[in-house]
């Protein structure tokens, strides 16, 4: 049963004050933002909002002060994140940089890269996207074909990245690609820090099924990268990427994506819901409260430097199920025909939730891949 070490979550000192401060900030900042916008959760993009968060010190808040961080604990960061998500704050602009690109830079970057980029990320002024998936490389990340070849003064990149969220509004991509022979699936790959204004890079938006354009195809055609673009160690890309993905799992973003809909559901049901509705609400709350406890427990393990990969995968898998269930259960309780962009807020929120729910068990590792990771953790493979 060692796989299931979920120690009690830690309540960091000053947590209540920090939470109150964030709530106060969000109450003011989001006062005029309707639920139909807030339901976008961490897909909601607002560069001005990100800049304000940066001014407050709530981006890169665990990083060293010399790189623009605030040296707060991971548990304090957790409080800020969950408050942002529960309120439906538009965090997409800085989300990737804060969650994974920044920590990756901190771990693998050169002094120059860190000094150049981390303070700008923490200020909410420099946004990142992830260059992992490709047309023929989704869950099978080791199959990437994009390749960087050494030139006299750096690298030349050719290939295509896909599903690159907000590439069209990001300053940098962290590119994962091959740098030597294809025979060795995991070796021979590296990561690069790519300035997206360089020539030879074409970003084409792809509409999702709702018609929104947040992800992209990014094509590299003889794109020249300076030698200083290499991130970490040449040939160590696979290990770096696996470490980076570990930052992605088990956070509050893995179970709060449709929380704004649950809030609207409670509004719609009023103060005296039927017994059936009460049981459904209670059931969802029991799931969310337990997930939050498990997720905070994993945050505590991460803070201590443990490697709770299995627990993190379990939280993400359970979380996606609940996020997807909320719109399905809402429709059992409130008779409405969902419609994106409707003036009726419930209709609009429910519409957005339904149209986006499929992504919850795809992004950051599909449900099937996660369950494979869990099975491995159980000793089955």
């Amino acid at each position: 049963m060692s796989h299931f070490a979920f120690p009690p979550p830690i309540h960091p000192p000053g947590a209540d004050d920090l939470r109150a401060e964030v709530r106060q900030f969000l109450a003011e900042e989001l006062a005029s933002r309707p639920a139909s916008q807030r339901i976008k959760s961490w897909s909601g993009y607002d560069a001005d909002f990100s800049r304000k968060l940066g001014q407050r010190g709530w981006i890169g808040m665990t990083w060293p002060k010399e790189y623009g961080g605030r040296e707060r604990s991971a548990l304090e960061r957790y409080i800020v994140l969950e408050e942002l998500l529960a309120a439906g704050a538009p965090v997409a602009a800085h989300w990737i940089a804060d969650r994974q690109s920044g920590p990756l830079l901190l771990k693998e970057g050169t002094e120059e890269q860190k000094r150049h980029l981390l303070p700008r990320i923490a200020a909410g002024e420099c946004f990142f996207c992830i260059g992992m998936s490709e047309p023929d490389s989704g869950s099978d990340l080791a199959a990437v074909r994009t390749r960087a070849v050494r030139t006299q003064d750096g690298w030349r990149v050719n290939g295509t990245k896909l599903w690159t969220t907000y590439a069209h509004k990001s300053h940098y991509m962290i590119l994962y690609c091959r740098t030597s022979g294809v025979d060795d699936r995991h070796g021979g790959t590296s990561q690069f820090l790519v300035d997206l204004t360089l020539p030879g890079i074409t970003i084409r938006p792809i509409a999702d099924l709702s018609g929104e354009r947040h992800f992209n195809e990014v094509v590299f055609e003889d794109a020249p990268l300076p030698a200083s673009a290499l991130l970490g160690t040449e040939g160590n890309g696979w290990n770096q990427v696996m470490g980076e993905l570990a930052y992605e799992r088990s956070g509050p973003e893995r179970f709060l994506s449709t929380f704004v809909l649950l809030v609207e559901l409670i509004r719609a049901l009023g103060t005296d819901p039927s017994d059936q509705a009460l049981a459904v609400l209670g059931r969802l709350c029991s799931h969310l409260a337990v997930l939050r406890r498990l997720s905070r427990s994993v945050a505590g393990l991460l803070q201590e430097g443990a490697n709770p990969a299995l627990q993190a995968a379990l939280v993400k898998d359970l979380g996606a199920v609940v996020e997807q269930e909320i719109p399905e259960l809402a429709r059992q309780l409130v008779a409405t025909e969902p419609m994106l962009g409707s003036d009726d807020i419930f209709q609009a929120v429910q519409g957005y939730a339904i149209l986006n729910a499929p992504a919850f068990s795809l992004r950051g590792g599909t449900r099937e891949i996660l369950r494979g990771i869990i099975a491995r953790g159980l000793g089955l493979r």
Partner: protein
Amino acid sequence: MSETSEIVRDMSARLFADLATPARLYKAEAGVWDQPAWDRVQMMGLPLALVPEEAGGVGLEAADAAGLVASAATTALPVPLAETMLANRLLADAGLPLAEGPATLAPARPGDRFTLERRGAGWHLHGGAERVPWASIAGDIVIVAEAEGQVLAARVARSDVTPLPGRNLALEPRDRLEVDLELPGDAVAPLPAGITICHPLALGAAFRTAALAGAAARVLDMTVAYANERSQFGRPIGKFQAVQQSLALMAGQVAATKGAADLAAGYLDAYSQPGGADPLPVAIGKARAGEAAGMIAAIAHQVHGAIGFTHEHALHFLTKRLWSWRDEFGNDAHWQRLIGRRMAAAGPKGLWPLLTTL
């Protein structure tokens, strides 16, 4: 966890494993009370785990006491450890003498109520309760009732009440109590302020949640082990992706029972603090673990195949407990509605603040 707690945990885990042999579990199913097993449990002082040291108990923290309940549940040990721990805690809270042997608490169902009325220097206790766990075995039954604006605990000798025997799916005693009894004045005393009449239900539910988590974890271990050893089509069935996906699903539900049990155990520490008798964490824990229990049992049986469906294989000792315990001390729907009412009362603005108090 303190060093003492760790020693108690490790020693009791060994004891439970020693005691819960298949032969003894079959005998318990046949209705034979395992007095020798109980004596060993009692000798270790476990029934007093939740009683503060100054009241003559062991004074474990709630989470550690819940850990003992979970640990016993991993072996399906057929003794009323959880019930006696809770009965003794109620007695200690009320300042009444502790139980000498196995004990239990009532009511154990949401609708059941007893009435207490002063009669001369003593009390008249009247009422009934269904499905009281182990009542026919217990030496003492702690009955909680309201009178004169207070919540009181009454210490009742089983020999004075004659429970009507019943059983759950795992064939553990779940008995009917009909009480119409004169009690001396010193057999009844008030529980600490802030405690409500649903207190015994919340206590029982908190420990049933711990027991569900313990049984669930053991069922997962057994199922993974079986998937690795049973071969079909020339390889262990655990190598098939379809089986792996089921087991991963099960592991998620088992993790949820663990989180649920930890949340619920918080009530046992909190209720004696001012304003701490809020049953919400128990409601959340019991509802979540109860829901998980059914999925866990179903996948365990699916993976075990026909052998797991036999009386000879030990899986049923645990799955029958999962199917029983989830409906005891309030079923999922009972607790879900309680949570739902709290959410509706909190309203759209209060929902998130409510969640973050947990």
